[in-house]
């Protein structure tokens, strides 16, 4: 999931590597770490400044209950079923998780962009690259859940503030 988030944010999923090995597999450890190092090297230096909004948004997304809750429930939904006793297909669960992940991340990205001083829809879009339509749609949602507020108009342009 974190890998997906890194992909969404443009940081690149291959900044994060996952591996499983046992205590006896020293050679495997060496192979894995060498491969990881080579891979990261090929991506070049990572500059957190360039991605400050994205990182902050990713952090907020991971902190929020919505996703933590969904991930925690995965095993139960797949193995034992939901409150209605329906077992979920892994594919279906993952598709929904992806969708929620993307939505939540975008919301937080918008919020972080607003905090950074980009308060109109157009300015937000220019700063973080999201589509205008997507931003407007999510802003309405965010207003309902008290993530942001509508602050009025400045020269006919609606302005938003983060809560």
């Amino acid at each position, binding site marked *: 999931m974190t890998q997906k988030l890194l992909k969404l944010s443009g940081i690149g999923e291959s900044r*994060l590597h996952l591996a*499983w090995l046992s205590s006896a597999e020293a050679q495997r450890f060496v192979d*894995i770490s060498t491969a*990881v*190092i080579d891979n990261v090297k090929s*991506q070049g230096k990572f500059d*957190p400044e360039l991605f400050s909004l994205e990182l902050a948004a990713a952090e907020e997304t991971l902190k929020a209950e919505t996703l933590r809750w969904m991930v925690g429930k995965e095993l139960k939904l797949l193995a034992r079923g939901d409150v209605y006793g329906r077992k979920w297909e892994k594919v279906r669960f993952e598709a929904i998780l992806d969708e929620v992940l993307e939505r939540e991340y975008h919301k937080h990205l918008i919020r972080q962009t607003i905090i950074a001083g980009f308060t109109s829809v157009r300015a937000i879009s220019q700063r973080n690259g999201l589509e205008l339509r997507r931003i407007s749609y999510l802003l309405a949602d965010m207003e309902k859940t008290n993530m942001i507020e509508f602050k009025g108009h400045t020269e006919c342009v609606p302005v938003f503030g983060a809560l």
Partner: protein
Amino acid sequence: MEQVEPKIVAFLCNWCAYAGADLAGVSRLQHPSNMRTVRVMCSGRVDPLFIVQALKSGCDGVLVAG
């Protein structure tokens, strides 16, 4: 792209990967020196937030191994 020596934070499980890394030492298996290990009791302890934190701090990559 500039040639860099990246720093990579490795979250290693005390019982598996960390032990494997120790054994690599005992066996003197040489490898590049870019890893910075953080020992955890289980890879399940690694909150995704730690990973974001590592990147925020300026690390170039993260490895989680259990």
